[in-house]
């Protein structure tokens, strides 16, 4: 049998999942609990450079400084950059192909120095522009994860 005709096999990786239980950490837990219980967004301020980060975490990377001061952020912000995803791929969260198209953007929340990334509502594509004002739309049923925000929608502000 020639090389070309030869049957070549593959093997799947099996049915077992490899589940993980990631620690959210102290600051992250505060953020998600506040989001879940009060629909509020928290940032954390670096005592050295005064930058406010979202989501809150322990270290300001450029200053290598421990951060402690939580600050409440607006649920409104500005769209800094975005894309509309039109190719489908397997969503590791659900194990199924993520429905497309959907909007994905970087949002600078008012009162914050870095961007928050989340889905954006693209129903009216003409309004989806860099610099557009956006506001968080919260899920009715909130579970203490990032999906407690449904998406950000374009607003006239």
């Amino acid at each position, binding site marked *: 049998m020639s090389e070309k005709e030869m049957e070549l096999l593959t*093997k799947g*990786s*099996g049915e*077992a999942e*490899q*589940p*993980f*239980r*990631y*620690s*959210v*950490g*102290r600051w*992250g*837990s505060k953020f998600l609990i506040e989001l879940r219980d009060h629909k509020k967004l928290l940032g954390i301020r670096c005592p050295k450079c005064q930058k406010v980060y979202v989501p809150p*975490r*322990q*270290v300001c*990377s*450029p200053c*290598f400084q*421990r951060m402690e001061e939580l600050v409440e952020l607006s649920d409104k912000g500005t769209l800094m950059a975005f894309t509309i995803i039109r190719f489908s791929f397997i969503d590791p969260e659900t194990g199924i192909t993520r429905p497309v198209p959907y909007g994905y953007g970087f949002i600078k929340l008012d009162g914050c120095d870095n961007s928050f990334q989340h889905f954006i509502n693209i129903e009216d594509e003409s309004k989806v522009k860099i610099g557009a004002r956006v506001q968080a739309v919260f899920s009715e049923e909130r579970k203490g994860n990032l999906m407690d925000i449904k998406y950000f929608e374009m607003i006239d502000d």
Partner: protein
Amino acid sequence: MERTAIIGIGMTKQERRKESETFSDMVFEAVTKALNDAEMTIKDIDNIVTGCNDFWDGRTISSMAVGDASGAWDKNISCVEGDGTFVALYGLTRILSGSYRATLITAHSKGSESISSLITNAMFDPIYTRPLGLDAITSSALQAKCYMDKYGITEEQCAMVSVKNHRNAKNNPYSQLPMDLSVKDVLNSRRLADPIKLLDASPITDGACAIILADEGMAKRFSKHPVWIRGVGFCADAYHLGDRDLAECKSLEKAAKTAYRMAGIENPFKEIDVAEIYDAFSYQELMWSEGLGFCEKGEGGKLVESGKTEMGGSMPINPSGGCLSAHAVIAAGLIRIAEAVLQVRGGAGKRQIPDVKTGLAHGINGPCGQSHCVWILGE
């Protein structure tokens, strides 16, 4: 080799589960301690090598999670995926290359976040071995059987290692399982895979460690107690267990030979004052002792029986309690280095061995100690 030193070490307490801490949180604690220990700030560090493993961390590009905590902002950085001894070795070469002067090494893992047997199953060949369900425990049990059978090592002798190391852990505030055990306790503990029983095996652990390596100039400038790196060596054996004589550790012998030659050590038993070696299972301390030349082949069992590897013996092994008492994979080898540093400095507190001039640290990678890394540290 140019003179290089370890001038700072820091580690977290090693625990079964650090519920509230992320990888980054743990690493930040270890790094902060190491910088304080060296009386440095992050500005004095000019490059970083992190030790991360995508499987243990449950994410691709696991190094991304600890860059901020490792002080990587605007610095040259790399990541070795493997035990901390290998991570540090690459960090050392970055100084020897003349490119950098002070390397920060970090390593972390959280065994608590995943299912260990699935993680270690993934190191086996996906087509031929993995479907059989082999993991770290079952493969090591195979090795233990081969080794014990070939050299007449007994389960009692293995149990003595566990008794010794858990007792030593009582002197180590960072360790996870300080325990007073008897040989009988070990022998009667739950059988995992013959001949390995629960108390022959290391626990699941969360923890992180950081060390700072420096060239001679930096070492002298910052440190009152630089611990000099006298020799290093590493070497890998064949992959397929069936290709190896599992009762032997040839790659360790070769790695040790390289490190000893560099350090000018001819009689390791006499010239080394303390050893921190990677005892993921009790039989491994015996087997690796032989590979490191502390005794003749097959004499590992007699070595532990003789009491020479106890705290008061002539060759104390694992005064920290070893991996048997706390086993944060990936960090574990780096912790061995940090512990050896403390011993050489005379700063090991209640677990200090008197008058240590030369210490050895050892780490492993891959199934059944396929690859070994040996460090010789001295005053």
